[in-house]
């Protein structure tokens, strides 16, 4: 079974590697690149802990073989905060609203919510619940997570409003 070469951009950094075709993107990130912020729960696409951005879209990295991501741009939870460690608005909201307990599922939630709010900046609570349905939290901290997403959306709307005010 021949190994396959791939070129991939991860968190803005170009990477080259030769991998076994059966290596998942999740295992590639964790074991080859030592980016262990992406967590693996179920390894068959149910729990969402391994969610990363692939060309900007949230996907389960356990359901993508690394070779399928050849040429793609990947963003993992390690690149969500600013380079100086400043939390993103979504991360800040999760901290503020106790949107995590043990933290195992949190990287997946942060990535999913970051993509969701980018595409749906003013969601209803029903839309938030639907968007969160692809990530499981075994501590059952869903109320805190829901509040965090609502708060992050409201904060983003307020920030956008302030910018509009200044522009006038």
């Amino acid at each position: 079974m021949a190994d396959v070469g791939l070129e991939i951009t991860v968190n803005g950094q170009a990477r080259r590697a030769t991998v076994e075709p059966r290596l998942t993107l999740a295992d590639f990130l964790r074991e080859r690149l030592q980016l262990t912020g992406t967590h693996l729960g179920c390894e068959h696409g149910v729990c969402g802990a391994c969610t990363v951005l692939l060309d900007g879209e949230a996907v389960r990295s356990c359901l993508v073989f690394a070779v399928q991501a050849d040429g793609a741009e990947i963003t993992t939870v390690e690149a969500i905060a600013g380079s100086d460690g400043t939390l993103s608005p979504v991360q800040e909201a999760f901290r503020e609203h106790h949107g995590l307990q043990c933290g195992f599922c949190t990287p997946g939630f942060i990535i999913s919510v970051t993509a969701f709010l980018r595409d749906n900046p003013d969601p209803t609570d029903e839309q938030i619940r639907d968007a969160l349905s692809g990530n499981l939290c075994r501590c059952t901290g869903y109320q805190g997570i829901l509040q965090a997403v609502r708060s992050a959306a409201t904060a983003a709307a307020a920030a956008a409003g302030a910018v509009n005010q200044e522009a006038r």
Partner: protein
Amino acid sequence: MKPAPFEYHAPSSAGEAVGLLANLGDAAKVIAGGQSLVPVLAMRLAVFDHLIDIRRINALRGIAERDGRVWIGAGTTEAEIGRSELIAARVPLLARATPLIGHFQIRNRGTIGGSLAHADAAAEYPAVALALDATIEALSPRGRRTIPATGFFTGIWSTALEPDEVLTGVTFPARGHRSGFAIEEFSRRAGDFAVAGAAVAVELGPGGRISRCGIGLFGLGTTPLRSVSAETLAVGVSAQTLAAGTAAQSPEFAREIGQAAVADLESVPSDRHGPAAYRKRVGAALVARAVTQAIEEARNG
């Protein structure tokens, strides 16, 4: 939870993909988004020596209207279909089915060709293809052929595709005048496979009578199903007589169609989510609701 080793191929044309399939036979499997196949591989429910990835084949992607029909390339993702204004306007049943598939992270990778070829009995797109009389396109070393959706789903996770055929696209009729569509499903949690579901398409003819009715059922058998007896019952009936109901309280005739749709079902699943009798009750209620909504839309435009 690691797949068995396999050889990886990423051909750049459909012809090349078909050539590989012809050479490698049963040892090869086509992979598109992988949202159904990768779990199967991870749990080693199936093992293939070769995976043929179609992601580089641009001719297998896209959405286009041609001669009153809408073609969708097999490699088009569910997310792309969900965002398409053409699909929303011209194949509304497909647009309405899309948010019911898995979660948005799954829809970002999963493809319509993959969904049809995987042919899960509880999946939405196969039932939509049945209700709308879609046509499936396949390519093999012998050339192209088309397969009507009604003859496509042949058994558990089985289709009419030959081992050396690649599903290249699917064509849906664009919506006609005085048509209506609805999809109803019940699942335990958002994104789970349906306990039962129904996709319904109706068209009204002269005198406001139902001239065509397509009913696709999912979660109610070993394959996606088309309910011909219930469709026959509906055709010819005046939509006026059906107009009394609402989505919550289906009119009597819609309930009869619902009963007819499940009456002859022989292989209704029975599992921890519900025994067969329960699924049939749920299925009958969902058919009635979807029929009521579809007729309402057809009457009111």
